[in-house]
């Protein structure tokens, strides 16, 4: 059990990083979409 702890922790960290990356990419797509809408409006 004790020996598994570091691996479990590592997986948890990796999962958090994957979620953060996914959220950043979704955010980027949303921002680019909004920019396109605003610029198409003549700004």
């Amino acid at each position, binding site marked *: 059990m004790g020996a598994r702890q*570091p691996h479990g922790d*590592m997986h948890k*960290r*990796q999962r*958090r*990083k994957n979620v*953060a990356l996914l959220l950043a990419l979704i955010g*980027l797509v949303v*921002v*680019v979409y*909004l*920019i396109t809408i*605003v*610029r198409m409006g003549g*700004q």
Partner: protein
Amino acid sequence: MTDTSLTTATKTAGDTFAEGARVGDFVALLKPRVMSLVVFTGIAGLIVAPGRIHPLLAAVAIMCIAVAAGAAGAINMWYDRDIDAIMARTRHRPLPAGRMAPDEALAFGVALSLFAIMLMGVATNWMAALLLAAANGFYVFVYTMWLKRRTPQNIVIGGAAGAFPPVIGWVAVTGHVDVEALALFLIIFLWTPPHFWALALYRAGDYAKAGVPMLPVVAGPAATRRQIVAYAIVLVFASLLPAALGTAGLLYGVVVAMLGVAFLVLTFAVWRDTGEAAARRLFAFSILYLFLLFAALIADRLSNLGGIG
């Protein structure tokens, strides 16, 4: 001594990163405290520039300035991980502490830089994106890789990188560089040496150990104090330029004149006092000085807009 320490530090950082970095380590790579001042001066440039910009595009422009500054900080930490491991102030950063692989930090910094520059071009204009790329390139290649370890003038010339944000904010609105924007650049450019040399005065031992030729290490504390006074005097006059050029009015002029007097009082205290306390006070106040100066610029502009409306 230094060579051995450098080798050991690099090896240690490279050997122990297997644990995996936390999300917080990636945030730390972006130097959030430095980023806050960069963002604030960028916002000031955006607000005082003549013209209009859609609030969403303004927000994206500020985000791009923040992300690009953070990315440059990450690349700086990647390059400086050997000397960061030696200095007490920086040895707990993710790379020297061994919590992150160097390649991971470099990839993170480069990717964020490219995203921020491209997004700035798409959201505002390509002149602003070009200036953002120039600021990043200057910080990484000119300051970090070329000047920092070679000359005591490192932060004088390298300070130009930190002076870009208000110009980028200005250009995001106008599309071109004006003399009023260059005045804002000049203020930060002249502010940087007294700010960093005040820090270096009481961290000289750390810099010497890491082999970084900061002015107090190379020329000694007395010469550094004289240089601080010289730059502070020129800075106080330069800080009045926005009022002289019409970018700001009476409110800004009065606030900045008072701030300038306080800055000079603390600077002359450093000149007379050979202890650490005066240098620490000047370093702390210099951050507040720049923050309040740009806050006065924003307040002045907004009060004028209110008057017109």
